[in-house]
């Protein structure tokens, strides 16, 4: 009993399975950022002048900003001149017309990651866009989607092919000057996915994007834009991995969602960027701005995230509830281990009448990690009848980690209801012993206890993802108890 947490403390550290490097010749521009670099990126993408102007404007805005320091995170300052802002496999210079033309080395990479790109082999009913470093290398099922009018393509292509849509919506939810990393992303973003679901269409399959950072000393700055027109529906999934490297790498993405009248967007993430090793060396710095706008009446945006990777996570998928009766949801599992730090949560901004939001956050801390929930619920004076329910649960494994909760509530409407519940618990030795006494080994027991804790979030995930998420937790916690 002298050190009651010992059996658990010994049980957390399997190998990061996605940590391999693909040996492929890449074209990487030299590190550093200036207007010429931005012009180079824009030229590589064959962008129209308006896009370059937008980027340069963003760059100038970014130059005048400073990195945010309010998060509960400790890390050395990022040297923005040491990062290369563009890297692409040489073989991808002219984007292949079909999968058969994709570099076999790339296909093998995704095969190894469990994402077979050949449509024959692909999961039935899931279309995939794969982004490798700074470029999209393949998008599957485009033809089938095109038949119902759904556009699913790399954003670089959308800028050329659908300029009117991009002009109308890019930066409309996350303005350039929203924050330091959003401004940086606006200046240098290289690829990402673009989705447009036309009026009245229920997207016939799940759409997904798989992000992979491969090249050393590069950052990944993807940009995703999803527009769901009146009465349309889409479920979108994203996954991310990176090789194991000793130095930190930067990932600064922006995701914007727009839901028009009666539209619904379900956005699920399984984030498994390289988390660094057991001594806290290496790992991805993940600074991401994700926001959805419920622009129309009765619209709904739902974020579900399972965050197990990254050395630093700074991410607050939010919903602006502008349309009357619109609904925002945020379901999150954030697991930190070893020296990982996560400061994550959401913002629900109630503007329309009778808007409703639900926040369920599950934070799991193990090792010497720090896990923070940060959330804002704002109810504007016009949001008559607004309701929010927030539930924030923290689970500690061992006694060297930390869990923190910063819920902010700004309620300017007396007619609204805002509820907040929070709990903190420990995977206790008693729970572990009960499982073991029934014949269940310690690792399986911890995984069962943690999965039970996350159940409310996992059931929001699409089936295949829920299974993957459960397995991911198991791997991430390996060695957490002994």
């Amino acid at each position, binding site marked *: 009993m002298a050190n009651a947490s010992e059996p658990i403390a010994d049980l957390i550290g399997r190998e990061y399975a996605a940590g391999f490097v693909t040996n492929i010749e890449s074209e990487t521009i030299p590190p550093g950022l200036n207007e010429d670099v931005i012009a180079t990126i824009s030229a590589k993408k064959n962008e129209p002048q308006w896009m370059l102007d937008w980027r340069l404007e963003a760059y100038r805005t970014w130059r005048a900003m400073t990195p945010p320091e309010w998060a509960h995170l400790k890390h050395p300052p990022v040297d923005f001149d040491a990062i290369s802002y563009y890297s692409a496999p040489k073989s991808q210079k002219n984007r292949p017309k079909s999968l058969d033309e994709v570099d076999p080395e790339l296909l093998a990479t995704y095969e190894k990651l469990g994402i077979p790109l050949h449509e024959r082999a692909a999961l039935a009913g899931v279309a995939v866009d794969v982004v490798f470093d700074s470029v999209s290398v393949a998008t599957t099922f485009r033809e089938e989607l095109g038949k119902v009018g759904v556009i699913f393509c790399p954003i670089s292509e959308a800028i050329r092919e659908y300029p009117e849509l991009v002009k109308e919506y890019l930066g409309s939810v996350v303005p350039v000057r929203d924050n330091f990393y959003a401004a940086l992303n606006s200046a240098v973003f290289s690829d990402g996915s673009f989705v447009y679901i036309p009026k009245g269409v229920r997207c016939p399959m799940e759409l997904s994007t798989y992000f992979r950072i491969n090249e050393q000393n590069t950052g990944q700055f993807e940009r995703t834009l999803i527009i769901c027109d009146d009465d349309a529906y889409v479920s979108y999934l994203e996954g991310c991995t990176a090789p194991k490297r000793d130095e930190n790498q930067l990932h600064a993405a922006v995701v914007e969602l727009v839901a028009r009248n009666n539209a619904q967007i379900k956005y699920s993430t399984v984030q498994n960027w390289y988390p660094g090793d057991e001594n806290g060396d290496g790992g991805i710095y993940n600074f991401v701005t994700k926001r959805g706008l419920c622009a129309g009446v009765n619209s709904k945006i739902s974020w579900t995230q399972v965050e197990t990777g990254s050395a630093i996570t700074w991410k607050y998928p939010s919903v602006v509830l502008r349309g009357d009766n619109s609904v925002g949801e945020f379901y999150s599992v954030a697991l930190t281990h070893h020296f990982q730090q996560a400061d994550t949560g959401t913002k629900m901004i109630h503007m329309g009448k009778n808007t409703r939001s639900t926040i369920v956050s599950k934070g799991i801390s193990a090792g010497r990690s720090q896990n923070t929930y940060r959330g804002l619920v704002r109810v504007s004076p016009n949001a008559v009848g607004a309701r929010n329910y927030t539930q924030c649960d923290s689970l500690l494994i061992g006694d060297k980690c930390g869990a923190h909760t910063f819920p902010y509530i700004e309620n300017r409407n007396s007619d609204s209801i805002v509820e907040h519940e929070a709990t903190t618990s420990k995977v206790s030795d*008693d729970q572990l*012993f009960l499982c073991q006494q029934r014949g269940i080994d310690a690792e399986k027991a911890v995984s069962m206890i943690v999965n039970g804790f996350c159940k409310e979030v996992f059931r929001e995930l699409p089936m295949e993802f829920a299974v993957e998420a459960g397995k991911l937790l198991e791997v991430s916690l390996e060695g957490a108890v002994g």
Partner: protein
Amino acid sequence: MLTIKNLTAQVDGKKILNGLNLQVKPGEVHAIMGPNGSGKSTLANVLAGRAGYEVTGGEALFEGKNLLELSPDVRAREGLFLAFQYPVEIPGVTNLQFLKAAVDAMRHHRGQTPLDASAFMRLAREKCKGLALNPDFLKRGVNEGFSGGEKKRNEILQMALLEPKLALLDETDSGLDIDALQIAAEGVNAFRSPERAVVLITHYQRLLDYIVPDYVHVLAQGRIIKSGTRELALELEDKGYSWVLEEAKAS
């Protein structure tokens, strides 16, 4: 089945078991009684391998195997079951999921194929019925929001499903009203067989009205100071422990 020789153990540096000897054979039911702090629960926890209970000497053999060098989950799979005095909650994990994982682990250890979901469900429902438990009980989180009586009956349910060779029941009677006690006792009696043994740890003679033991032992200051049969328990109820303690001191 179980042979304990001169066992000594400490908790937080404090000596609790002090040269304990006990022999349990298949088919037998032993009751261990004794005043508060005599080491009854420590004995159960040491045998099951709970962290923080440090064995400092002696041995405990379970079917000839040195119990003390096995991890808690292996002891369980070998057939040692502990019904907890204070069963802990595991929120979000359903009782069904928990029981299935436990039964799967046991069957795997015994070289049996795992039961499929529907066969397991049938078995679990049947065992629930025997303990007057509503089958909805299986869908609830492990011990989550259970009443004291439900928690204890859940322990007996687990015993019935796992079919151990030796069951240690740590104050299973505490906190039970008379009806719940009877149901739990019926569960234990149904479990009794010539191949299985039961060790009951209890404060009160009352339990032994329903589960009749072959042997009764008095545990005091970390040792068994007197052993007898059913009559000893009645005598203890009548006269308390002081005379046994006096007797032990005199010898």
